[in-house]
C-alpha cells in the first residue's frame, strides 16, 4: 500500500510540469494583459508599456517561463496582481471556505443520497423507486445557480429563516483560529457562532450538493441492485442470517466500493471550487477567486491557483484509490 501511494505521488511531478506549461502557454495566448484590466480608459500607451515591462511580459517566452519555474521551485506560488497578496496567503484564506462548503455539500449528498438509493433498490419497481429516479433526474438537470437563487428567495428573502450570503453574520464576534468557521466555533466554545456558521452553510450546501446527491443515489441504487443478486448474498440469506445483518455486512459493504469512488471524485471536483454557488451566496472560496483572476488576466493567480487545484485533485484521487484498497481486500492483496 505504501509503495503504491509513493508511486502515485511521484506521478505528481510530471503531471504538474505538464500542467504548469499548459496553463502558462494558454493564459498568454488569451488576448489582453493585466495592464488593460488595471487601468481601463485611463490606459495610455506609455502606462501600458510600463506595466507590461514591470511584469516582464515583453521578455522572451522561455525567460518568462524560467522565472515562473524558479518562483514555484522556491515554494512561492507568486503574488496576485489584483490584491497584491502572496497567492499562498490567498489560498490559506479561501481554501478552508471551499473545503467547508465541499464537506457540507457531500454530507448532504451522502446522508440523503445513500439511504435514498438503498431504499430505492430494496423497493425496486415500487412508487418509492420511481420517485427517487424522478428526483435524481431533477437534481441533475436543474442548473445549480437557478436552484441557489430559488433557495435564497424562498428561505432567505421571503421566509427569513436562513441567511443569504457569506459564512457568518458580521455582527457576531468570533475568533477563527483555523478558518473553518464551524470548527472554530466549537474550538472556542462560541455556540452562537457555531450555530450561525451552520445556518450560513445550509443553503449553499444544499444547492451544491444537489447534483452529487442525484448521482450518489443512482449509483447506490444500481450498486445495491447488483450486489444483492450475487451468490454470496443468496448464500448468506439461505444460512438464515437476518435481512438487516445481510444488508449491513454483505450488501452495503460491497455496494460501497463504486459509491466511495464516486464520492471521492465528487469531492475532488468540489474542492476545485464551486464558482456558481460561491457567486450566488458570496461564499469567499477559491472558485470565484480563480474566475475573477481569469477575467482580470491575473496571471500569477491563474498559474499558482490552477497548480494548487491540480495538487488537491491528485491527492484526493490518491486517497480514493487507497480507500478502495482498504475497502476491498482483493485489491490490497493483489498488490503484494
Amino acid at each position, binding site marked *: 500500500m505504501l509503495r503504491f501511494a509513493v508511486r502515485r505521488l511521484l506521478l505528481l511531478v510530471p503531471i504538474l510540469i505538464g500542467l504548469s506549461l499548459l496553463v502558462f502557454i494558454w493564459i498568454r495566448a488569451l488576448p489582453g494583459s493585466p495592464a488593460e484590466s488595471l487601468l481601463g480608459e485611463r490606459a495610455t500607451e506609455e502606462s501600458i508599456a510600463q506595466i507590461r*515591462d514591470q511584469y516582464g511580459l515583453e521578455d522572451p517566452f522561455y525567460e518568462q517561463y524560467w522565472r515562473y519555474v524558479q518562483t514555484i521551485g522556491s515554494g512561492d506560488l507568486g503574488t496576485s496582481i489584483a490584491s497584491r497578496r502572496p497567492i499562498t496567503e490567498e489560498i490559506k484564506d479561501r481554501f478552508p471556505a471551499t473545503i467547508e462548503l465541499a464537506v457540507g455539500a457531500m454530507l448532504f449528498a451522502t446522508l440523503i443520497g445513500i439511504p435514498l438509493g438503498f431504499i430505492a433498490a430494496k423497493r425496486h419497481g415500487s412508487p418509492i423507486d420511481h420517485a427517487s429516479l424522478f428526483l435524481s433526474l431533477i437534481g441533475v438537470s436543474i442548473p445549480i445557480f437557478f436552484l441557489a437563487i430559488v433557495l435564497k428567495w424562498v428561505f432567505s428573502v421571503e421566509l427569513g429563516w436562513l441567511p443569504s450570503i457569506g459564512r457568518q453574520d458580521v455582527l457576531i464576534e468570533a475568533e477563527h483560529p483555523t478558518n473553518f468557521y464551524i470548527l472554530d466555533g466549537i474550538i472556542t466554545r462560541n455556540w452562537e457562532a457555531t450555530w450561525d456558521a451552520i445556518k450560513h452553510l445550509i443553503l449553499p450546501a444544499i444547492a451544491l450538493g444537489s447534483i452529487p446527491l442525484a448521482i450518489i443515489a443512482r449509483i447506490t441504487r444500481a450498486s445495491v441492485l447488483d450486489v444483492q443478486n450475487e451468490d454470496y448474498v443468496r448464500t448468506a440469506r439461505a444460512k438464515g442470517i437476518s435481512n438487516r445483518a445481510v444488508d449491513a455486512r454483505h450488501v452495503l459493504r460491497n455496494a460501497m466500493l463504486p459509491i466511495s469512488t464516486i464520492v471521492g471524485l465528487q469531492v475532488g471536483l468540489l474542492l476545485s471550487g464551486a464558482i456558481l454557488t460561491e457567486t450566488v451566496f458570496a461564499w469567499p472560496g477559491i472558485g470565484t477567486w480563480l474566475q475573477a483572476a481569469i477575467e482580470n488576466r491575473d496571471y500569477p493567480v491563474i498559474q499558482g491557483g490552477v497548480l494548487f487545484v491540480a495538487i488537491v485533485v491528485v491527492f484526493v484521487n490518491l486517497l480514493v484509490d487507497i480507500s478502495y484498497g482498504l475497502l476491498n481486500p482483493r485489491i490490497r492483496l493483489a498488490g503484494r
Partner: protein
Amino acid sequence: MRKGLKVLLAVVVVALMTAAATLAANSRSDASSGDTLVFGTEGEPTSLDGAVVSDGVSLRVIDQITEGLVSLAPGSTTIVPKLARSWTASNRGRVWTFRLRTGVTFHDGTPFNASAVCANFDRWYNFTGPFASDATSYYYYTVFGGYKKKASGLTNFPLYRSCRAAGNSTAVITLRRPNASFLGALSLTAFHIQSPTAMERYGANKGSLSKDGVFTPGGQYGVPGGQAVGTGAFKLESWTIGDRLVIVRNDSYWGRKAILRRVIFRAIPDNAARLQALQTGEIQGYDLVEPQDIPTIKKNSKLKVLDRPAFNVAYVTINQKVKPFDNPLVRQAVAHGLDRAGVVKAFYAGRGEVAHEFMPPQVLGYAKNVKKYPYNPNRAKQLLQQAGLTLPVEVEFWYPTDVSRPYMPDPAKNFQAFAASLNKSGFKVIPKSAPWRPDYVGRVQAGTAGALNLIGWTGDFGDPDNFIGTFFRTEQGQWGFKNPALFALLNKAVVETNPVKRKSLYQQANRIIMNFLPGVPYAHTKPALGFQRNVIGYKPSPVSLESFATVRFVG
C-alpha cells in the same frame, strides 16, 4: 423493515419540522436600528494606504479614516476647507500656503501639524521602484506628473518642488510651475494626510516587486490585519479577508462626531447577491445598483434608491486624421445624424441624461449656452452636400464588445441605434468592433479605431481639467487635430488660480469645443445606491467621496 422505515420517516419529518420552527423563531436579527451599519461592497479593498490605490472599494473605506487639506462640499464638487482652514496662492500659483487646523491628532495620538503634511507630500514625491508606477500611485502620477527620481518607462515632468513647515500650523507647498487644478486634486483620497508615525512604524514604504513583477507591500501598513491611520471621523478596527472590515467611531474627532458607532464593510461581488442581502436586511446599503434592479428596490416599501450625481460622459470620437472628418461641416453632420435622445431614452433605464458638452453639469466651467445639435437627418444631409460630398458618405464606426461601462451599459445597442440614425442622415456606416480587452482603448487612443468610435470617461476628481483638459489640452492621436488656440486656452485655464476667472475660461473653452466639435458627447449617467429606508444622512457625491459620519438610523 417496513415498520422500521415508517419510524425512520417519522423521525426525519419531526426533525425537519423542529428545525424549521427553530429557524423561523430565530430568524435574522438585523442591525437595522442601532449603532452599526453593514454596507455591501463589490469586493475587498486592495490596500488601505490611499497613496497606492485607485479602486473605488479601497477609496470608500480610506475616505472614512483619513482626510485631506481640502475636501468637497457633500454632494458637489465645490472645494471646502478640511484639515486646512484656509489657503492662499502666490507667485502666480506656484506657491500655496495652507493654514492648518490646530488641536487635531491622528488616531494613534501623533499630532497633526505642518511637518506631518510635508512628510506625506515628500513621501509621494520620493516614491521609487515599485511605488513609482501608474499601476501603484496612479493619482500621484496623473496630478503631479512625475517623481523626484524618474520612473522607468514613464515621462517625468514633476509639478511638485517642495514642502516647508513654517511653524506648526502653516505648510507651504511650492510647485515647479503654476497649476490651479492642483487644489481640487488635493481632495482626492490619494492625497489625504496619514500619520507619519504609523507609516514609519508599520512599514508603509516597504514594498517590492515579486519575481513576476507584481507590487507587493512589505510592511503592515494598509494590509489586511495591519494598520491605517488618519484623522478621520472613523478609525480602522479590523480587516479580515473574506469576512469583514470594521471601522469604529473616532470619539476624539476634531469635528462633529459620527453618529454610528460602527460601520462594517462586507464584500459581495455578485450584483444580485448584494440586492438580496439588502432585501433580507443582512446589509443596510450598497453601491452600484444595476439599472434593472432599481424598480425592484423602489417597489419595496422598506428600501430606497439614492442617486449619485452624474460624473461621467459618453461620447463619439471623431478622428480628424480620417478624411473628410477634418471638415467641420462633416463633423456637424455627424452630430445632427446621431439620435442621442433616442439612445439615452432606450438604453439607459432612466438613469441617463443627454450630454451637450464634454463634462457633466456639476463640474466648474459647465456652460449652459453651448451650440446644440438636435437629431435632424435632413440637416445632416444638407451639411454633407454643402461640404461637396456625394451621399452616402462612408464612415468606419467602431464599438467595443465584451464590456459594460457605467456611461455605456450596452455598447452594441448604442452602436446599432447610432448606425441606424447615421444611415438615415446621409452616411453609410461600416461597422467595426473589437473586444474591450485587450486593446479597444489602446486603438481609440492611438487613432486606429476608425473615423468614429464609442468611448467615455468617468472623472477622477472634481476639476474641469480632469475632463476637457485630459481630452483637449494637447495634441492626441485619438482626435487627430491641432488647434493651438484651444490648447492655449486650456493651458491658461489650468494655471488660473482665481476661481471666477477660471470658471469663465472653462466656460469659454466648452463653447469653443462644441463649435469645433472634435467629437459628440451624448450621455451622462447617474449611478445609484440602495439603502434600507430607515437609513438617513448618506449624501451621494459625484466623485463618490461620501462620508458615513452623518449616517444614522431612524425609527
